[in-house]
């Protein structure tokens, strides 16, 4: 049995917040390999809106000057894990926009490993998580900039919104930089809906769930801005939002 086939435990860094019992039901995870040739473009939408446990692992290799647009919506599974490894060659460009919506005792996670292996590659990750009930939402995002990958620009914007105090958000961006002239902006915030904004909206006649839904729609939309399937992704997210609120 290879190492990959052994069910991980929570001692594994990449699985420290996982629902191991649920993971067992979908183990082992088959890695989906994607290669984008030099100067080619690719895109993928991962939409998981079923109720069953799901775990996916996508490994993407971007050749020189290649571009890839990945969008993720996890909204429904009792356990949902989306792991993404990306290796960027020179001048490659990677975009990830991910939204996770959970309620009840659901556990959702996005785990990324973005490796800048060539000069002047750019990556941008936007992760938006909405958590109700006693759900758990996690983002683990490692960015590695290898020796010689000078001129790297790697962005991470990670925000989670807790609708109830009983929900838990974990966010851990990590950076390993072995190159020069690297830009690595990252923002990370866990918060609640702005009470002043909610009152403003309700003072015009919106019900509390409507006001929350409107603000959360805007929050999630940031993950889908500019996506080829922006509209359908937003609609699918909205359907789940309405169920959660």
């Amino acid at each position, binding site marked *: 049995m290879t190492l990959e086939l052994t069910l991980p435990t929570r001692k594994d860094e990449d699985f420290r917040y996982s629902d191991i019992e649920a993971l067992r039901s979908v183990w082992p995870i088959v890695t989906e390999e994607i290669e984008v040739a030099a100067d080619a473009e690719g895109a993928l939408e991962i939409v998981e809106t079923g109720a069953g446990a799901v775990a996916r692992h996508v490994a993407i290799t971007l050749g020189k000057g290649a571009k890839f647009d990945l969008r993720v919506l996890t909204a429904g599974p009792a356990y949902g894990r989306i792991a993404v490894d990306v290796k960027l060659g020179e001048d490659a460009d990677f975009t990830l926009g991910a939204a996770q919506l959970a309620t009840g005792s659901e556990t959702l996670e996005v785990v990324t490993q973005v490796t800048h292996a060539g000069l002047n590659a750019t990556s941008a990750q936007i992760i938006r998580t909405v958590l109700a009930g006693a759900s758990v939402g996690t983002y683990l995002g490692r960015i590695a900039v290898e020796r010689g990958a000078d001129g790297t620009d790697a962005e991470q914007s990670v925000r989670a919104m807790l609708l109830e105090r009983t929900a838990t958000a974990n966010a851990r961006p990590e950076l390993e930089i072995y190159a020069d002239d690297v830009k690595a902006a990252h923002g990370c915030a866990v918060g609640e809906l702005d009470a002043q904004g909610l*009152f*403003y909206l309700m003072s015009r*006649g919106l019900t509390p769930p409507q006001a929350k839904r409107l*603000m959360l729609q805007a929050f999630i939309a940031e993950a889908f801005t500019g996506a080829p399937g922006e509209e359908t992704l937003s609609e699918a997210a909205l359907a789940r939002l309405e169920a959660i609120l």
Partner: protein
Amino acid sequence: MLEINNLQATVADKPILKGLSLTINAGEIHAIMGPNGAGKSTLGYTLGGRPGYEVTGGSATFNGQDLFELAPHERAAAGLFLGFQYPVEIPGVSFVQFLRESANAQRKSRGEAPLSGGEFLKLAREKAGLLRMDMDMLKRPVNVGFSGGEKKRAEMVQMGILDPKLAILDETDSGLDIDALRVCGEGINAIMRKSDKAVLLITHYQRLLDYVKPDFVHVLAAGRIVKSGGADLALRLEEEGYEAVVQETAA
């Protein structure tokens, strides 16, 4: 239309309104003036139902209904509109979407049919025009990047679209330039000066009252109405200041 009786309210456990009484009838325009920190905005927020503003005594009856029994959105549906002293910015939510949903939420709770997209846009265009506001501004996120005066003008456009019975306008005049003040004043008259509507203007200056002539002027100080009069009271306050006018009452 609105009857406030001996209202007491606290903010963060601090008593702010200390026995305020005021009656506003349909067809009337009232102005409230008073020193900074007197509790004017607190009155508006308390009537609007803002969380954190706790009613500790007294009552407010709005068209026969106990106002404090209603949630903020129910007060709006009942016909109450609060024009904010500091309108809130809501990133990512467009005015058009927000106002259409708001208008339809109110209509739904009154048992009226919702406005279609086209009907709403026509209404919004008409009210934006009334306030001389570029319709494109309503496609932008709510108040985000609006100047102080633009936010106030947008409040009046919202009032026009929502067509309330009673508008409480908290310092709508502050931040407006000279022309905008006139446009907003005329807008308030056009939208609200009707026999079945009423307005409570909270203001520091006479200038708005030049355009929107009040039937009654009240002075709010230390959480209570300490003096009431006609439109001339505002002129006297401007000339003599609160202290002189209020002291004369106490004497």
